[in-house]
């Protein structure tokens, strides 16, 4: 069951209704059962894995809470992290490591055949594993209290709005809310449903419509010229933004309908004027997780190297980011390209700042526009490695973009352009005129309801309603 399936439209209102009817003290357990049922609709067998990671997380954090010895606490944390990482490694990286070692051994003359595994990747495993690690580290750093209710730990790791594709939640945000489990207020329901409506628009009208074109081009890149490949490359970041951004809004909105506030994931990324700003606006829950648990400890450990310590920490952090995205060389290259962008930016930061303040550039619209365009182009280029299956495919696409001209394969429909335009106008308004031209938030009830009706009508009339998957389910 996904958010765009017909079953979810029946499932969700019943879940919210029952949540508000049952006594407050049973709500954690109720949502835990609901979340497990939701997961079981997709992969019942892997519930065992989710329950095991929950058991390990609960047991190890309780164990850490029972000791005052900092070194012992740290050792328990490290063993906890290793144990919760084992299933992720086994299901996601085993084949990749296996094939790499086999290829290496073959290259030096040894022929071995270590058996492959061909089980499906458990959905959401990268997300709940990272949430578990975050909680273990937070307990070690004394940033959160140890949660003694196993139901709360279970729900924190499995909450159905975010288990499949994030946002990657934090113990510090969720546990205080799970203690209260408030009754939904009318304001929660309206705020949640508005977010969900916009999330459906982003997913069904923008992401899936662009997906038809981008998939048609990239899945058959050999037969397309450089002009078409360049065009598809430019559209792909918008598709991913609308897909994961749309999913995130559906998750945040669904939780909000039950009075729970989960962390944001996107903040109009394409208005970023630098790569580092883009990464503060794009997949924020993931990048904040990396910053807190990988980048900060690394840059702290390497701080005596000054700026070069920062560069090393950045490269290693984005290497992890690439590996998280997929067990493939393309994902690793994708991560390294981001690391190179950010490292160059860090090295040039002082010069850029002094030039900007000298000429007061940050206030000039044309400078902001140029920066946004350059950042977008750099990001779109890097996404070629995220979209192509192999490094040689990505290399062919890049070579064609720069060498092979031709006429454009024109298949993006008027509906697609119209949807992108609406998304752009909405984000533009939110970025530069947040208190003007309000529609969903208008003080006039008529304007509000007309806006809801128009977006709902667009979803039904031009959305791609085939129950398609979300891009980030594969991670």
């Amino acid at each position, binding site marked *: 069951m996904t958010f765009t399936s017909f079953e979810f439209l029946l499932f969700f209102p019943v879940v919210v209704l029952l949540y508000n009817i049952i006594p407050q003290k049973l709500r954690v357990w109720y949502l835990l059962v609901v979340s497990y049922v939701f997961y079981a609709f997709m992969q019942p067998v892997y519930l065992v894995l989710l329950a095991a990671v929950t058991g390990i997380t609960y047991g190890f954090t309780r164990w850490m809470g029972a000791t005052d010895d900092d070194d012992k606490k740290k050792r328990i944390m490290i063993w906890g992290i290793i144990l919760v990482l084992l299933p992720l490694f086994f299901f996601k990286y085993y084949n990749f490591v296996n094939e790499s070692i086999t290829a290496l051994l073959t290259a030096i003359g040894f022929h071995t055949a270590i058996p492959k595994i061909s089980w499906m990747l458990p959905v959401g495993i990268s997300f709940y594993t990272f949430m578990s690690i975050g909680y273990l580290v937070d307990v070690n750093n004394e940033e959160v209290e140890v949660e003694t209710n196993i139901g709360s730990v279970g729900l924190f790791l499995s909450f159905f709005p975010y288990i499949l594709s994030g946002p990657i939640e934090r113990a510090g945000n969720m546990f205080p809310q799970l203690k209260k489990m408030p009754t939904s207020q009318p304001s929660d329901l309206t705020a949640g449903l508005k977010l969900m409506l916009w999330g459906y628009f982003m997913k069904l009208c923008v992401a899936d419509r662009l997906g038809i074109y981008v998939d048609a081009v990239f899945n058959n890149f050999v037969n397309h010229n450089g002009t078409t490949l360049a065009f598809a490359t430019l559209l792909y970041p918008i598709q991913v933004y609308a897909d994961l951004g749309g999913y995130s809004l559906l998750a945040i909105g669904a939780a909000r309908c039950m009075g729970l506030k989960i962390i944001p994931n996107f903040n109009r990324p394409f208005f970023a004027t630098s790569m580092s700003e883009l990464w503060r606006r794009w997949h924020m829950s993931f990048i904040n997780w990396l910053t807190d648990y990988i980048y*900060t400890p690394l840059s702290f450990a390497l701080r005596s190297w000054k700026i070069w310590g920062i560069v090393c920490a950045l490269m290693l952090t984005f290497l992890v980011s690439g590996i998280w995205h997929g067990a493939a060389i393309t994902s690793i290259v994708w991560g390294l390209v981001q690391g190179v962008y950010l490292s160059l930016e860090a090295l040039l930061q002082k010069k850029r*700042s002094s030039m900007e303040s000298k000429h007061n550039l940050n206030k000039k619209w044309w400078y902001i526009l140029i920066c946004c365009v350059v950042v977008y182009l750099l990001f779109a280029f890097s996404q070629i490695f995220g979209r192509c299956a192999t490094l040689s495919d990505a290399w062919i696409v890049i070579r064609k973009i720069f060498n092979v001209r031709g006429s454009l394969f024109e298949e993006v429909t008027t509906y697609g352009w119209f949807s992108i335009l609406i998304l752009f106008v909405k984000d533009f308004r939110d970025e530069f005129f947040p208190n003007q031209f309000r529609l969903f938030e208008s003080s006039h009830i008529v304007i509000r309801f007309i806006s809801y009706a128009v977006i709902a009508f667009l979803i039904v009339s031009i959305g791609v309603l085939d129950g398609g998957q979300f891009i980030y389910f594969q991670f």
Partner: protein
Amino acid sequence: MERELIIEKLTSIFHDVFGDNSIVLRDDMTAADVENWDSLTHMLMITKVEEVFGIKFKLKELNKLKMVGDLITIIESKLQ
């Protein structure tokens, strides 16, 4: 070292690292109030603070810093 002297030295570190000589430190100031104060420049600032004051931070202490006032207090406690 007196708090005023710490603030004076810290101000000059902020001016240098964040490239803005108009920064005036306040206890409740956070990264959101200072342009260019991000996760990259943060560690450069921390390294400079360690150098200038001759102290060493622990990662746990850094994780607990929420605002400039916290930083001043921790420097003060380390110098005593």
